[in-house]
């Protein structure tokens, strides 16, 4: 068994080096993407990764506090993006989107955050609270059910068509020069918003009273209750904060890709969970870093590694790269790159 893992480990490293070497050879002989194309891949990867990081925070916080994977978190993210679309569309129709884009996007962001928070809190109340004392896999299976239920509820409520946000203003579509790098405006905005949100969350968890109770409940529910912390309220707060982060991510998704539909939440959800594990589950800065790393793997990996083998159509395989990253991380470093933060009972 252990020898098998060593074979996998060595094999993975050999394949990685082989692929990269192949790509380098191709690059030296003048084939393959140009330097500019590489840079765009990196920037796109970081922007998308920042968004994954925001969703990953919700997985990480809930896992830290309740010890189960909230599979429906991807749908929480989708709900924000979906409702944000209707607000954006309305603002576009009344003209505010073009005349005052900053105000418009703030309103969209607000509606998206509110929706996601609300959905997360309702789901906790109806589905997860009665299962607090159940074996760990029961809430996981429940959350899979919730995930499908929410997807098809949104399909029923708003229709199955992909909803395209109105185009962002010219200034965001053009490239902005920053420290000698030319970056597409919307990607830069996504990165800035994600980092600002992350800093805000970090301050919230570290400095406020609610943040302290969240950390205390994650550490040990019973002792937290003995210290006078309202555990139920704290758990609701955890879901609300995680939902709000997913809501921000919903708007960022709209800035990056514009299209939202009822199945939008599935893949980013799984990938964000991957990011949370990559960074160490329960570890909030780790979740953000894990998100960015995963975005980079996914953005650059197919070109960097797979193209080296002469595989055609590598961009189709970017999800394979992300899932392979998940598998490899869980095989070799299940505690994540930056260390998991779980109470003793959740670590079992």
């Amino acid at each position, binding site marked *: *068994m252990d020898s098998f893992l060593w074979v996998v480990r060595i094999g993975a490293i050999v394949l990685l080096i082989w692929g990269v070497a192949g790509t380098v050879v191709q690059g030296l002989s003048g084939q393959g993407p140009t330097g500019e194309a590489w840079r765009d891949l990196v920037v796109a990867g970081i922007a998308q990764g920042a968004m994954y990081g925001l969703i990953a925070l919700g997985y990480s916080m809930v896992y830290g506090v309740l010890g189960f994977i909230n599979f429906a978190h991807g749908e929480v993210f989708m709900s924000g993006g979906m409702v944000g679309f209707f607000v954006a569309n309305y603002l576009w129709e009344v003209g505010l989107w073009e005349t005052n884009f900053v105000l418009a996007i703030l309103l969209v962001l607000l509606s998206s955050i509110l929706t996601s928070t609300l959905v997360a809190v309702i789901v906790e109340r109806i589905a997860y609270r009665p299962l607090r004392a159940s074996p760990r*896999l029961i809430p*996981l*299976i429940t959350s899979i*059910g919730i995930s*499908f239920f929410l997807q098809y509820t949104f399909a029923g409520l708003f229709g199955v068509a992909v909803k395209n946000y109105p185009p962002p203003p010219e200034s965001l579509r053009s490239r902005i020069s920053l420290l000698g790098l030319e970056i597409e405006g919307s990607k830069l905005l996504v990165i800035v918003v994600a980092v600002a949100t992350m800093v805000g969350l970090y301050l919230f968890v570290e400095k406020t009273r609610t943040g302290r109770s969240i950390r205390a409940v994650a550490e040990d529910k019973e002792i937290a209750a003995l210290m006078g912390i309202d555990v139920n309220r704290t758990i609701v707060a955890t879901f609300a904060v995680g939902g709000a982060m997913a809501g921000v991510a919903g708007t960022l998704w709209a800035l990056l890709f514009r299209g939202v539909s009822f199945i939008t939440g599935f893949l980013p959800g799984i990938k964000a969970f991957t990011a949370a594990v990559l960074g160490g589950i329960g570890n909030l800065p780790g979740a953000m870093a894990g998100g960015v790393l995963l975005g980079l793997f996914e953005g650059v990996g197919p070109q960097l590694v797979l193209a080296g083998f002469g595989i055609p159509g590598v961009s189709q*395989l970017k999800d394979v790269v992300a*899932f392979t990253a998940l598998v490899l991380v869980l095989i070799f470093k299940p505690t994540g790159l930056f260390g998991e933060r779980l109470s003793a009972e959740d670590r079992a």
Partner: protein
Amino acid sequence: MTGVDLRRTLRWGSIAGAVMVFTCAVGLFEAFEDRLLVYPFLSLGHVLLLWFLPLAGYQATNEPVLEGMEAPSKGLHNAMAGLGAGLAGGILIGAFTVIIDAVDVRDVFVRLSARLVDLLTHGWGVPGGLVLLVAVPALLGMAGGMLHLVSAPVRRRLILALEWALVVALLEQVFSQVLRQLRLGAVGNIIFTRRALEWWAALAVAVLVAVLAERARGGIGRIRGYLFAADAVRRTRNSIWSALAVLAFLIVLPQLLGSLLSELLANVGLFLLMGLGLNIVVGLAGMLDLGYVAFFAVGAYTVGVLTSPISPRFDVEWSWWAALPVAILMSVIAGVLVGTPVIRMRGDYLAIVTLGFGEIVRILFLSDWLAPTFGGAQGVRNVPGIPVGVAEIRGSQPVGVLYFAFGLVLVAAWVSWALQESRLGRAWTAIREDETVAAAMGINVVRAKLNAFIVGAILAGLGGALFAAKVGSIFPSSFELLVSIIVLVVVIVGGMGNIPGVAVGAVLLIGVLGGPTQPGLLAEFAEFKLLIYGALLVFMMLRKPEGLLPSVRRSRELRGDELSQDAWLDRPSGGAEVDARPAGG
């Protein structure tokens, strides 16, 4: 009024109102409004809209009777609370109707149309129809509350009668088909009008069920006594007889059903096959495998590329029987490849990683990279059927597929049953309950878990092979994550770890609602199938995690009746509750 808890009443009333608003907003009511169930007045849409009201009315005064305490008195207050709950619900749906009539929100909520208002108000428009819209829920709520006034056995019979009348109406297709095959089509034509049960026939069914209910209970008890006879020799003989009886039933059944229903039942067989495999992995060994579809895909693609005359790479055109061992071998290899890295992970990580493997397999089959072998998005087409003697079994003759699927299912059921009772099966149970203790007792945990993975993979691969021959063409889109989830729902709803339970789950879910791409008996539900699957999964987890036909041992574990220190079943806040139980459980 004494005994009416206003808060409780209003709470249940508003839940009922929310259920009704939800039913309208996702389009369930409008979609089934014209599917009549009981001719001439009750449609499926009405049932979906109003089913929760009697329940809410009942719950409004449903107090648990504590041991040693006097049961709360029954009386007018039960009916009044039910009425109140129904009224609250009715007012909510009424207000909702007024709002969607006044404000046009169709651009956002696609289902809230003028037609919906029209249907809700029975075509009488907003002020007029509202009376009916509020009164019907109020009366239903009161009816629910009044259920408290009859004794428990009578209440059970009433509910059972109502349920059966609805089931017969809903499954009109099956009943009229069976009647036709029995040369009794005329009876079918009399009791069914426009696919709906005549009202007097519904009444007759209800009365019949109410009268026979108690007798059927006795009958079931006798069957139990017969099957589980204390004397071992008699028990063996009895179970052989009953197995023969089931076999005979299965042989006769397709003749009664005709080709359309046989097709549905063949799908049931396919999913039952996979369900039995997943049952070994999830139910017996306790590993939540969400990437089960990967093995199904491997089996289907192996058979596809080896047998199809237009297979992209291989030009061998083997027969199905020759390809089958290769397909099984491939599934075993896939099982080992997926299983080896994942079996040491903790349960929830295992679930997500297997899901990842499932998606990887699908994306690889879809990719341009492997398209020269597997055809990419075009898939593999012209897969021939299964040659049996002179005949060939393929999708166009569902009866043949059905017999073949039954055969495979019987083999799979026998294998799972034998494994369950074997040394390996007991090892799985031990691991599921406590991995550390199992290892300490000398069980090779890794090998036992890997064996479970392999057996599961073989059954899924077999399912894939059958699927390839049945549908004749395979596309990557047939192997979505959804397949894994639906097989999981089948196992969970039926009862994890229990073979008859899985069979019941497959018949109820795949047969009635349908599989991921296969229509079920209620084909009109297609659009809402996954909504219902999701809701069902949540409901089962909240109310009956052990399934409809539970395995005794498993349900004890899930209810936490035994000490669970095991990693798989680790209780997040376990310590205190476990300690509070008397030792020995």
